[in-house]
């Protein structure tokens, strides 16, 4: 019980600090132009990283499972310019179907 509360306090404080550090350090000031370019590119690089990790991360490195089928279906929906809701439904539906058919 105590161990759980220490984990809640320490992880909570660390996460709040990580989320807030940019706000404290950058203040409300506009960024210098050079830094601005990097910040604008944070979104595509980080989103790409999140796509890769949340599609492929397994217990032991890379795992190819039903998520890959789901994200591939989402990619097809995106190419066909489907609205976001349809894209998400394709991802969930195909991943669920793949699992029902026996994929991990």
């Amino acid at each position, binding site marked *: 019980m105590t161990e759980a509360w220490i984990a809640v306090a320490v992880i909570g404080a660390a*996460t709040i600090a990580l989320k807030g550090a940019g706000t404290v350090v950058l203040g409300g000031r506009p960024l210098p132009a050079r830094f601005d370019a990097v910040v604008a590119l944070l979104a595509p690089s980080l989103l790409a990283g999140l796509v890769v990790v949340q599609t492929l991360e397994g217990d032991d490195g890379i795992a190819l499972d039903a998520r890959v089928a789901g994200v591939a279906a989402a990619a097809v929906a995106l190419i066909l310019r489907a609205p976001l809701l349809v894209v998400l439904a394709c991802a969930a539906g195909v991943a669920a179907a793949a699992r029902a058919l026996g994929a991990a």
Partner: protein
Amino acid sequence: MEASTIMPDEKADCLRRGRRDDSALARPEVLAGARAVLPIAVAATAFGVSYGILAREAGMGVVAPIVMSFTTFAGSAQFASASVLEQGGALAAAVLAAVLLNLRYLAIGISVAPSLRGPLVRRLAEAQLAVDESWAIGQENGRVMRGRVVGAGLMLMVGWCGGTVVGVIGGGALGDPSAYGLDAMFPALFLALLVGLVKDARAKRAALTGALIAIALLPVAPPGVPVIAAVAGALIAARSRS
């Protein structure tokens, strides 16, 4: 009365752009964020339930996991720390796993900071709502729409924390959310928003480099590191010409 000197729609436009030194949020933008994140919030709720069940099994009790969902408010870190504790691992290992997974919030916090308005306390509070999904939904033409992040973040918080409450109190009826493919919705959301962002050569380079770094590190680096390392894609692309 400054408000009376500008037309109402002009004022709304200023708020939408977040240009004025005004901490008031544009309501339509907040609602747009909440609406856009709704399907993802449903998935987050289901995972909140399974987190609550896991935390209970890990011996965290009822109140601590709920408090953690409000304060830490980061699914992967909470799952990781509860798993370590559930397997009888050391407290330090649980903390380390969670902090590594949340290192990406340093980058997300920097990305969202220039868009925040108002006094420091308010900006810090809004920064807490910038989680992966709400931050992603706030993206528009290379900048972050603050109102959308807040609306989406609040919606996700309701789902994640509400799900946690159900899970710790004893909900197990839903079963594994992955069986419904809900885990595939998160990368699909990030992919959809990424497609809208990579309009020029530099953004494409940043995304491609980030993805390659993440793939290369996945088999060797501890969880959390591949994502934060993907940020190097932004640094490399910023140095490149055009």
